[in-house]
């Protein structure tokens, strides 16, 4: 086939031209998170003192952290899905860092040094390490499938970004279950729980997202 002939077919093909990448990623994330919410509702349930928790700064800081992480990971995922990675997404990480530093500083200032370790270990570390990867599973699958339409500069990095986004969504859900609100706990265990999800995303992405 001559190239001009191929061009005729390309021009005639108008399917899928009106679907911005952001919308596909958003839809995949919502669909995946909906399944995770069902698992959450059936197996985990929100904490019983949820209403009271909203009034504490630690819970609010926790929500701030997971929500800002969700925004940052969304920006990273969209950036990594493209052939040319623009660096603006890094600005979205700034709020996460600011909230983390402020919350950690406050916690260390208000708590006597002797209680730091107990707060860091908490009482739900193992639940956290299983629940976040569990809630991330379906969102990660949906995101990876959505990104097959994309053209990532680095398939492995794009997969890792999908993992980060899925883990952030999972963390938002899990935050409503977990009693451990100390920034010491959240920054340690939520991060540790996200790492395997990102590694799995990178490993699958490396193969699945090649184009």
């Amino acid at each position, binding site marked *: 086939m001559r*190239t001009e002939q*191929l061009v005729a*077919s390309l021009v*005639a093909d108008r399917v899928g*031209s*009106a679907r911005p990448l952001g919308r596909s990623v958003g839809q995949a994330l919502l669909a995946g998170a909906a399944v995770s919410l069902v698992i959450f509702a059936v197996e985990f349930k929100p904490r019983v003192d949820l209403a009271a928790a909203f009034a504490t700064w630690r819970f609010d800081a926790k929500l701030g952290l997971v929500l800002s992480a969700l925004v940052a990971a969304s920006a990273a995922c969209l950036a990594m899905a493209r052939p*040319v990675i623009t660096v603006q997404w890094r600005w979205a990480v700034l709020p996460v860092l600011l909230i983390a530093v402020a919350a950690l500083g406050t916690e260390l200032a208000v708590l006597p040094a002797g209680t730091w370790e107990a707060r860091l270990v908490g009482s739900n570390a193992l639940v956290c390490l299983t629940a976040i990867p569990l809630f991330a599973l379906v969102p990660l699958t949906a995101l990876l499938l959505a990104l097959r339409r*994309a053209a990532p500069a680095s398939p492995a990095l794009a997969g890792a970004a999908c993992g980060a986004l899925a883990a952030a969504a999972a963390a938002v859900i899990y935050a409503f279950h977990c009693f451990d609100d100390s920034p010491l706990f959240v920054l340690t265990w939520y991060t540790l729980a996200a790492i395997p999800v990102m590694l799995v995303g990178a490993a699958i992405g490396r193969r699945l997202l090649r184009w």
Partner: protein
Amino acid sequence: MSDPEDLSALMRAARKGDDEAYRRLLLRVASWLRAVASRGLAAAGRPNADCEDIVQETLLAMHLKRDTWDETQPLQPWLRAIAHHKLVDHLRRRGFTDHVNIDDHSETLAAPASAEAGSALDTRQMLAGLPERQRRIVEGISIEGQTARDVGVRLGMSEGAVRVTLHRALRALAEVYRKDRT
């Protein structure tokens, strides 16, 4: 591509459904790609015979992945990234693993359109792998120059169904190129 603004504008118009803008964009990109692929092959010490294959594979990728262009960015770097990716991929399939840098050749964007050099994969051979209906639609539109509607009338399909099948055919063709490990 001496006037990147213009290319971005063509793509923007194409996204709004301007077929003529899209055709002009694809043809201009094709002639640029021809120069890039030619130089890339020469730098890798490969015969120029593969040139048109690379051009077509890259055009297909650009077409199928066009949603990944961010309208707030210029089109040119996006095009160059896709061309680079496909050229490297093509050479790698043929066992060439050295670094290929197409930025060196960016000024050739402004070069006049060169004629098609190097033979594309034989039409029949390339389309033969497609299911009957997909093949007849691509042949109708590309080789016989018919519109999607004409092809639909001939095959007893609605115009919409023709376009959906055409899209599948193009994705399948992209796979044919990707899997081609000669």
